């Protein structure tokens, strides 16, 4: 669930207010307000919308608990999803060049499980 709105990074562009499907944020005078934190669905999509990396979503769907902002920034976790996605990269940056591997890797896992099960039950 939403854990931090980092005031010193926020430019009050309100992109998160518009993007959140669960209406977690209300517009505010200086920065958006986390008005309905418990409505957060942990979808992380507000982080993609935030070009300033001013938001941090904790990974549990039933907890807002997170380490202090400075620690998360030092660990490289703030803005990580946006960077991994290449969300704001130019379209020719190759940000989705690995995406074709999704199907083959899913299938490879299924194969591994099937072969392991067969080996385990070879004597049955």
């Amino acid at each position, binding site marked *: 669930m939403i854990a931090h709105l980092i005031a010193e990074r926020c430019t009050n562009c309100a992109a998160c207010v518009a993007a959140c*499907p669960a209406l977690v944020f209300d517009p505010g005078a200086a920065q958006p307000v986390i008005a309905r934190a418990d409505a957060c669905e942990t979808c992380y999509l507000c982080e993609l919308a935030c070009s300033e990396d001013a938001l941090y979503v904790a990974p549990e769907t039933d907890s807002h608990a997170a380490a202090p902002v400075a620690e998360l920034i030092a660990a490289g976790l703030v803005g990580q999803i946006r960077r991994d*996605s290449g969300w704001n990269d130019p379209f020719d940056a190759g940000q989705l060049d690995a995406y074709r591997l*999704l199907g083959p890797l899913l299938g490879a896992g299924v194969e591994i499980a099937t072969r392991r099960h067969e080996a385990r039950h070879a004597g049955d």
Partner: protein
Amino acid sequence: MSATITDVLIIGGGMAAAWAAIAAAEAGASVLMVDKGAMGTSGVTATGGPGHWWVPPDPASRREAIARQTTKAAGLGDPEWMERILDLTWRHLPTIAPWYPFGSDGQGGRFINGVRGPEYMRALRAFAVARGVEIRDHHPALELIADPDGRVIGARGLSLRDEHPWEVRAGAVVLATGGAAFRSGLIGSHACTGDGHLMAVEAGGRLSGMEFSIAYSLSPEWASTRTLPYTGARFYDVQGHELDIAPPRTGHIHLQTLGAAMLAGPVFADLVDAPRDLPAVLRRIQPLTAAAFERRGINLFRDRFPVRLFGEGTLRGTGGIDLVDGDCRTGVPGLFAAGDAATREPVAGAASGGGAVNSAWALSSGRIAGAAAAGEATRARHDAPARALGQAGLRPGGAVRDIDGVGLIRRAGAAIHDYDKAFWRREETLAASAAELDADWRAIADHGHASGRAAVELRSTAAVVATARWVVASARARRETRGLHYRDDARQTDPAQAHRLISGGLDDVWVRPLADAKEEIAA
């Protein structure tokens, strides 16, 4: 309340809604979308990564793909529909290119058929805006409105931001509200409460295939994610003994063995056997999945972690609003349905519509419904007197009382998704669920009323309970095992039941084989 007037009203904000809006606008209609969430981030596509059923347009390949899918559909598919969605998907998915950064196919071309959810929905929003579609986010529809002849002429709802009511008058309405996940916690599914199913039935529509709803995805117990890392997982109990879990390819037996283990105690996944190339690329394929572990300080390829199954209800099932023709009409004049809100039996039959076929269906049924709705919109009379069709949660039959919405949703979710009930469906447990859900329905229908945002949640609750009743009634009526529907007290497929089951009804839920339903329409 002054009404907005539009040719086509799209209710929903996921991929089917987007394609419906785009197609309606391309057909020359004025189009308004109203979404419960925010179009671009709401729904299960936005956090997912839909692969599309993708077969080149050479006749032999298409014939072979359709033959394979027809077998998978277990007697309930329609090869003509399959042909149509293959064609529409092949032609239209590449048209998102101005707004979507297609990656490489590794052979000098573009990889088109698999698209990442956040980027896909961002692209569809931009595409719709470029076609002149007006989008109203955070504008859930609460009910449909009809003219005196029963023709749907629009909807009413609430603007969540300022809690102001709205009314839209439309020449045609497309329900693209998604499937029903019964608030299982499945990522992206919170708003997928069956709202369109309830609105369609209130308007005189009906459902089909609601029994095909036993679908789950595995995830860490603290949050639902995509499943890419887990398909090769080993499983352990709390003492560290390895569990003998049937592999994913065994379908329902995989679910049964996992479910039995989880009912006995905590289950842990170990990804030591994951494909060797996966750890290095996971974050480039599914950044959200990597984050769910990294932010807990867990190395998912090294550390064992607790897992559970998240119900996917009718999302990865196949049932939904019945379609009466090839234009995605619901049988109610002026009302169309598309995507997961509609039955996907024409293309998926009794098998899971999840993954590629469902995505191709969402795109295609969206385009079909949108274009047909645009064609019908010119017949509209926006000055007709409007009758509001919403019942449960809006217009109680008796005295208003407090409703324990959280409790009702939890009970409905348990009736559909509890492992013991879902993986071993039996008449006794289904009958007990039906009785409980009937009582819960009575509570909402007789006493439920709320205002402001609470009204939206109460209507969602009514939709969850209603949809659960149609699922349970359909599961009771299909006394055999077929595709996704497994009956522990009828484990064989019965050739005499190779027909679809139609369902509907509000206070009195009914289920009938399709053959009978057809005769009724003729009569």
